């Protein structure tokens, strides 16, 4: 091969679940940018549904196209072990992102560190409301990164700030109306509520409506961002949002996949030649996260970002 | 015939909320007899039968079979006890073939694992053969209501039963099928099977039954040997008075008018009927006779645009009439009373008053289009009283009424709009003698006041008794007309079955 360059027609696929979700948009832009730099073709694939069997089917169909590599967001870790291994055996390299399948033979995993996000959020809350206040969380049980953001924050608080009191914990499943209802009730039951941590943006939209309506003084922090919560950040209704660096996730994701498919371009100091495994083995790459506040909010307008770009 | 009592009911009572449908009823059925039940609409006949079949549970009282006290908890139990039941309301599975419907009970108790459709259809054909020709593999939903009634009868005949209950089986049948049924009944009785026969047609009771029990207001009044009484005795016991005039006076010669209300010329439909031409004149009641499936209903439905693609010319009161839909027809005052009351005549789960006003609720609405409920109920109550409807409250659903009273609701519904031209398809289906006479009187009054009336009926005595003129339909064509002295069952039957071959009648 002529160094870091694709053969003509060499294709890389990015496969996700709920493919209409805006989260993937900047990730795929990063993926594409990197691919363009290497002269590679890309395909955005996956299933529009929240359905594991459908995602596996789309994964297997992608394999029919014999891509050189795939950046995969596996909806669940274990069900993908066997398909991933089969794909690698037939010559397609797999890198996971934003959700992992650690027991498979995927070559790398890239994500933002949910624990770091949770820790950052906890420290910020304490900094703003003091270390002996009441706080609450909304959650989305069953989705691992959201779960992690919540449970990590709660245990971090318990360990480091034992006087912080968790007074409400409601499942709102990314539904803004459910979040509105839950937040309104939490506010009722806890007039002294000081802070609210929400692991995703959909629920944050409903929560902020409830807080505004109740004219309560509650510090809201959430992960991810939507145009609406961005506006609330600008207006000071939401204190801060932590947003994964999606572009970097996609860009680095492509790099990892490409290298996995071209292991001959480097020669690590290990036994891969005799043992016969892929030298491109990176258990964990952190793409980092951005802190969105009133001051820098303008840089996070997805519509502005997408201007002049091709979404597919 | 022996005097062994096979079924004995003692002191049985049943209430539906405030309505006491049966009050301490006693009843005995002997082995091998054909026992008629008579009573006004709502007297409690069907309720008693439903109790015997285990569909309803009595509030108190006893049932014994062969001297043994029994509790009949469900139709399945009744079947085990050897009770078969032809229901007043047709209860068949529309999505299933005729053969399977007929042998549903057999299939249910069958020990074999697999169905044998072939054998089933052959057996069904044999059972049906006697009554009527229907392909046993057709789905019941594709049958006309009278054919469904025959399937329902066939179904009961296949049961291996000791007691057979027939609740108004002939209401939608013509003489021909009814005669076949009676033949079968007598044969079964001869084999020792006991039959309970419910009918409002006195002739049938007196021609075919051994004993008759009369019910009134949920009470058992009397049981007599048919040989010992005359029809007037039974009617008297039923309604508490003698009905002196079963049929109203017919149009007299000098009342006859040449004014034509409806003039129908060369009406045809693709497959169902052809070249139908007739007139309804002012003041007369016109009858339409024919065998089952002759196309009587189709012709009438075609005229008021309920069904089919019809060609031909019509005029109403001398003006050309072209209807686009049944709604249009209603707005011109032309209404149709359906023969299938449960299927397309009434809204079973809606209140009586809302049923009665269905053709034109606007009539009791105010300027804003709001229904004024007390007006609706008042008007419904007036019609109900006129038809002698037996009901609890006007807000009760129609499903809580007895079969005959449901029919009266259907008639009330039609009278609601003050029609100019009425087509009645089996109007007195299941209606008792008293109410029947009343309905006939109403029809006569309407006719006299200039309303055009056409009656379809499978009960020839009714046609002959009520109509001034009867047209006979055979295989989709009008095969003849009888009036005056020529109106006899023989003449009508002849025209209905021979059809095209026109005998000399005059």
């Amino acid at each position, binding site marked *: 091969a002529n160094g870091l360059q694709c053969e003509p027609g060499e294709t890389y696929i990015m496969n996700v679940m709920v493919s*209409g*979700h*805006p989260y993937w*948009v900047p990730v795929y832009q990063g993926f594409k940018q990197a691919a363009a730099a290497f002269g590679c073709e890309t395909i955005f694939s996956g299933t*529009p549904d929240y359905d594991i069997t459908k995602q596996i089917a789309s994964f297997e169909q992608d394999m029919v196209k014999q891509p050189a590599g795939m950046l995969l967001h596996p909806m669940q870790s274990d069900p993908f072990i066997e398909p991933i291994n089969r794909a690698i055996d037939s010559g397609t390299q797999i890198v996971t992102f934003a959700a992992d399948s650690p027991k498979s033979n995927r070559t790398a995993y890239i994500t933002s560190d949910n624990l770091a996000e949770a820790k950052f959020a906890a420290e910020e809350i304490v900094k703003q409301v003091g270390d002996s206040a009441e706080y609450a969380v909304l959650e989305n*049980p069953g989705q691992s990164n959201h779960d992690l953001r919540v449970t990590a924050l709660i245990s971090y608080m318990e360990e480091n700030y034992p006087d912080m009191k968790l*007074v*409400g*914990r*409601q*499942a709102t499943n*990314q*539904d*803004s109306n*459910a979040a*509105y*209802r*839950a937040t*309104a*009730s*939490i506010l*009722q*039951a806890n007039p002294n509520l000081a802070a609210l941590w929400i692991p995703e943006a*959909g629920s944050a*939209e*409903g929560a902020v*409506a409830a807080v505004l*309506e*109740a004219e309560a003084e509650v510090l809201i922090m959430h992960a991810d961002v*939507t*145009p*609406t919560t*961005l*506006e609330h950040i600008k*207006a000071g209704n939401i204190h801060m949002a932590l947003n994964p660096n999606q572009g970097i996730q996609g860009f680095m994701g492509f790099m990892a996949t490409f290298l996995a498919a071209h292991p001959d371009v480097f020669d690590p100091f290990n036994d891969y030649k005799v043992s016969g495994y892929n030298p491109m083995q990176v258990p964990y790459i952190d793409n980092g996260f951005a802190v969105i506040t009133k001051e820098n909010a303008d840089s996070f307008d*997805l*519509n502005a970002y*997408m201007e002049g770009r091709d979404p597919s | 015939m022996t005097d062994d009592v096979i079924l004995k009911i003692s002191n049985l009572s049943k209430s539906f*909320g405030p309505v006491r449908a049966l009050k301490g009823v006693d009843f005995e059925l002997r082995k091998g007899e054909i026992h008629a039940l008579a009573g006004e609409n709502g007297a409690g006949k069907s309720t008693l039968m439903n109790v015997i079949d285990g569909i309803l549970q009595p509030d108190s009282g006893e049932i014994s079979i062969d001297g043994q006290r029994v509790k009949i908890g469900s139709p399945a139990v009744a079947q085990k006890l050897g009770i078969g039941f032809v229901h007043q309301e047709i209860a068949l599975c529309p999505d299933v073939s005729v053969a399977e419907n007929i042998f549903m009970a057999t299939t249910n108790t069958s020990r074999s694992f697999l169905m044998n459709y072939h054998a089933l259809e052959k057996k069904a054909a044999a059972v049906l053969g006697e009554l009527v020709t229907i392909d046993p593999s057709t789905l019941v939903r594709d049958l006309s209501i009278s054919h469904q009634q025959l399937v329902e009868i066939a179904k009961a005949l296949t049961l291996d039963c000791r007691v057979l209950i027939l609740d108004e089986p002939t209401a939608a049948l013509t003489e021909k099928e009814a005669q076949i049924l009676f033949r079968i009944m007598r044969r079964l009785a001869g084999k020792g099977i006991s039959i309970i026969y419910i009918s409002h047609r006195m002739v049938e009771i007196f021609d075919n039954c051994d004993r008759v029990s009369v019910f009134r207001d949920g009470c058992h009044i009397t049981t007599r040997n048919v040989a010992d009484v005359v029809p007037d005795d039974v009617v008297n016991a039923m309604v508490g008075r003698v009905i002196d005039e079963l049929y109203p006076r017919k149009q007299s010669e000098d009342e006859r008018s040449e004014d034509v209300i409806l003039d129908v010329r060369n009406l045809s439909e693709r497959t169902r009927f052809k070249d139908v031409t007739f007139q309804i004149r002012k003041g007369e009641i016109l009858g339409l006779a024919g065998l089952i499936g002759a196309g009587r209903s189709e012709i009438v439905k075609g005229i008021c645009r*309920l069904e089919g693609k019809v060609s031909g010319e019509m005029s109403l009161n001398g003006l050309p009439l072209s209807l686009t*839909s*049944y*709604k249009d*027809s*209603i707005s011109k005052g032309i209404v149709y009373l359906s023969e299938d009351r449960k*299927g*397309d*005549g*009434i*809204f*079973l*789960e*809606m209140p009586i008053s*809302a049923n009665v006003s*269905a*053709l034109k609720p606007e009539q009791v*609405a105010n300027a804003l*289009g*709001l*229904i004024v409920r007390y007006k609706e109920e008042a008007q419904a109550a007036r019609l109900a009283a006129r038809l002698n409807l037996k009901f609890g409250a006007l807000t009760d659903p129609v499903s809580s009424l007895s079969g005959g009273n449901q029919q009266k609701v259907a008639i009330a519904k039609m009278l609601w709009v003050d029609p100019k031209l009425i087509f009645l398809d089996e109007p007195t289906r299941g209606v008792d003698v008293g109410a029947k006479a009343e309905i006939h009187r109403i029809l006569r009054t309407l006719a006299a006041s200039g309303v055009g009336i056409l009656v379809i009926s499978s009960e020839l005595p009714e046609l002959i008794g009520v109509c001034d003129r009867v047209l006979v339909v055979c295989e989709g064509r009008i095969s003849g007309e009888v009036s005056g002295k020529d109106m006899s069952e023989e003449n009508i039957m002849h025209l209905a079955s021979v059809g095209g071959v026109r005998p000399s009648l005059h």
Partner: protein
Amino acid sequence: MEDAVSLTDTPHTRSADASFIRRMLRMRETGLVAIILVLFVAMSIASPYFLTWVNMRAMVMAFAVEGIVVVGMTILLISGGIDLSVGSVTALAMVVAGWLFLNGVDPWVASAISIAVCTGIGAFMGFFVTRVGLHHFIVSLAVMVIARGVCLLGTGGRPLGLYTLPPEFKFIGQGTIGPVPVVILIFLAVVIGFDFMLRRTTLFRKVFYTGSNEKAAAYSGIRTKRVIFFTTTLCSALCGVAGIIYMARFGSAQPTFGIGMELNVIAAAVIGGASLKGGSGTIFGAILGAVLLSVVSSSLALLDVSVYWQDIIRGSILLTAVSIDHYLVKKRA
């Protein structure tokens, strides 16, 4: 004697009074009202915050907009139909109006166009049901998928931020008149208006006839297809109205809004006594059903019941409440 005189003097009023109470007791909804009252009392004892104005307002706000969709669904159910697309169509209403607004259209005009689009979707479904002859279930399922697709296509999957909506427009979603939110007033107007019409007008009486027995309705001269077309269209139109209010309320248009809404809405109507076979149901009952579902959810949140227990408790209360209601209705009958 005087007694007797006075008795005969006011026979009408007396019987009317007695029958009023009797009618109340006989009403289909009495059982549900009782169950909700019991929940209210229990919750007031369990939590001091329950019976506060703010909590009540929040609770009503939580179902008010969906309640408008419940009205449409109930009428559709009565006519014998069903609509699975309500969630998608509500989302589409937000997206269409939001997109138009972002492209410079006046928000009121944009809303009117959006409601018209939803009405058109209803008419489209009505066409397939009444002319092609397909079942409501399958038609609305397909439309549910299509409308969601249009939402995604129109937004690229991203929520549209509509913070620039003028305040007089946001007023319909966020404003109050006196202490009462405008949303609740709109909700009450829709509910009372349609409840009244459904009970009293000849037009809606035809909806009952059609749902009760379509063939008998046709044989009563009712153009049943038109009636079904009308109820199908009305339901989608009301989704459009709900979508616009949501948009004004949240200041954004979310393409993923309302996923799973259909089950909630149908459940409310069915709990409130609407039959899935058509022919029966009341707006009042359906709204009570929505209230019941909402009170249970709010109460669980208020009591801070563990997330993992909430679903179990919610489902159990639903089942119990419906069983009790059914028992009461049956007993009275």
